[in-house]
């Protein structure tokens, strides 16, 4: 078959940002997977709750303090997170470096409080099904915080090397920002579920 050149792609940018980025879509797809996982875990919680005669089963409702503190930290972290995204879009390396450091700290803080959240549930995972499901919900979300924190730390380190000044890195920062937003967004229904449904 003969070939006919009808288009020159040479003028296209060498890397796509935002919706033109492949990793952006990949991150989105993984968020969809994990979002489905969270939704199903919440469905399991509601299912077990609907079967139980009393909820929580043989336990007082969890203490509000650590969980609410985590919620506030996570919500507060959204401000620098969104700013970071903007700086990454402007490809301002200095500000992005500062933002990554701030986000590393804001990723570690909720983890520290989370350590106190598990005992605040006032039930053990092997006490009953209620304990199992709240531990799972909390554990699932903690895994996500840890995953994103590791990603943030590695990326922060990367931003201070010669690899930092690259459109690709700024795109990675944006994806990381998006993922952190997801981690925060998924926490809200979980928080409502674990702390407030148990008080109804």
């Amino acid at each position: 078959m003969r070939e006919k050149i009808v288009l020159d792609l040479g003028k296209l940018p060498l890397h796509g940002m935002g919706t033109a980025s492949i990793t952006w879509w990949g991150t989105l797809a993984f968020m969809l997977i994990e979002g489905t996982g969270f939704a199903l875990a919440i469905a399991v919680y509601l299912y077990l709750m609907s079967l139980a005669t009393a909820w929580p089963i043989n336990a007082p409702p969890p203490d509000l303090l650590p969980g609410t503190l985590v919620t506030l930290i996570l919500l507060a972290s959204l401000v620098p997170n969104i700013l970071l995204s903007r700086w990454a879009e402007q490809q301002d390396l200095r500000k992005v470096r500062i933002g990554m450091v701030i986000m590393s700290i804001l990723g570690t803080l909720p983890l520290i409080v989370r350590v106190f959240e598990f005992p605040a549930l006032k039930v053990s995972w092997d006490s009953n099904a209620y304990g199992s499901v709240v531990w799972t919900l909390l554990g699932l979300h903690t895994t996500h915080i840890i995953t994103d924190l590791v990603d943030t730390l590695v990326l922060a380190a990367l931003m201070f090397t010669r690899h930092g000044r690259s459109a690709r890195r700024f795109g990675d920062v944006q994806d990381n920002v998006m993922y952190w937003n997801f981690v925060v967004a998924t926490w809200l229904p979980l928080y409502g579920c674990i702390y407030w449904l148990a008080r109804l």
Partner: protein
Amino acid sequence: MTRPAPAPDARDSDRTLLAGALAETWKTPSGFWGALATVDHKIIGRRYIFTAFVFLALGGVLAALMRIQLAQPEARLLGPDRYNQIFTMHGANMMFLFAVPVMEAVAVYLVPLMVGTRNIAFPRLNAFSYWIYLAGGALLWTAFALDMGPDVGWFAYVPLSGPQYGTGKRADIWAQMITFTEISALAVAVELVVTIFKQRAPGMTLDRIPVFVWAMLVTSFLVIMAMPAIVLASTSLILDRLVGTHFYNPAEGGDVLLWQHLFWFFGHPEVYIIFLPAAGMVSTMIEPFARRPAFGYLGLVMALIATGILAFGLWVHHMFVAGLPRLGDSFFTASSMAIAIPAGIQVFCWLATLWDGTPVFKTPLLFIVGFIVTFVIGGLNGVMVASVPFDTQVHDTYFVVAHFHYVLIGGAVFPLLGAIHYWFPKLTGRTMSETLGQWSFWLVFVGFNATFFPMHILGLEGMPRRIYTYQPDLPWHGLNLFVSFSAVILTAGFLLFFVNAIRSARFGEIAPDNPWDAPTLEWATTSPPPSYNFAMIPIVGSLRPLWDDRDTLPIADGLRTDRRELIVTTLATAEPQAREASPQNSIWPLWAAIATTIMLIWSIFSPWAVVWGSIPVAFALIGWFWPKGTPEDGS
């Protein structure tokens, strides 16, 4: 660095230079390490397909053993313990290690070619997903060899698979094998979605996407939405068994049926995860053999999407006799029956295509015809079991065994075998023997129907599933003996297919670029394609680019040759947005897979594996993503 783009009047010598440069950039180094580090979707896809067929053969051996055991009443070839392991292995192996992976494997190979790009999105993830899949399969089969094979059914209902009755580590091995295959299936689904969304050739708008690619898109979304349910289920099962959680313990607020809800919320879409790619293959393959465009493109695509959506609304029909409220059951009857409508639309469209076309009776078309014959039976007896009252008699009997083999073998394996014959030239550069192909088709077709049709009757005569033997005074032995004999024919058909494939791969006739005069893009490149798929990215102007403009292929120019580069296009209209680097070969996905494997297998035995085992995984992932300073890292 950048090689000057060839002028529009590029001559052959420039073309050779270009091909040479691209081959150097995209090459997979020869040798052991090269093979381990490759990220070429074609090499990985071939590996994936090959491995899946190995698992098919192994699963077939198990099926043969079961048929020998059941040929006579009170046979003593297998004891109950082995038999239970064997039927569990057969089901788990065929569903998780063959059917789903093989469909994704074919897509890994074909989708990038069909949408006209140079590699799949996230090629390293692709390599990783293969290794994880392989590890999962190895885990399951090694366990079986050590008498540790799961013996709780591929559905692993609690409490039989739970901590009290699922003795030893057998059920854990089942559950963890699921984790392996889910990771790999989810990863491939993400790759496919992004490849189809963002890497289509310029001009391939939504209404110019080949039906197979549409089918894989819908399938990938099904995987993404359904598989988390089984991940949740298998994880909670392992937690129940290992650290004493109570998800499935009724005495402590858990529920036995919760397992079934979670399992079938995944398990039913699973059927469509297997069937939709096959339907897509048929819609795509039918064109060159009916020698006309497939009738009703919009209808076919909409039917795929409708099936995908409905797939999530009918899991309860697996639980009609579990004692759920009858009104709810009736809703699920309605939704289960409704899925016959999109299936019907596709069948009628294929019939119309054949009616109006000029059939060329080559092996792939034979498999398509065989598929229509058997799949319609599978669909109709699916309608039967969808009815609550009907199901109370046939649930968990050989009727259901007949039903799902009609759907899975008739509806998915037939098209798959056709597809292997059809795409063999593109896979290997050689064609399969037509004579052997036709023989194998007839053996498989006759053997299959003679094996599985009588099972309908056995089921109605009261023969339950999953029994390792039956007593001589039950009126089943005649048909069982017949079924076992027919299975010999079916086995012979599959053997012939394997012989044909292996022989043809080495000695088959060298295939031209487009041996079937097919209309889709994968046939625009050589057979087998070069490492970079297309020297210049094709531009698509219609649904069937190779038919609508038979003389010239419009192409785009201007991509760099010193780094692996492909184009990102817009989601709906496929307009070029950017040139994007595609990652280099890397050994890190293998290390990551090994680290993950260690963590997952260890976590069967100790919960601490998740803590300590994740550290090497994290290091492997950092190694994977850390920039190496290659041209692909820059921008």
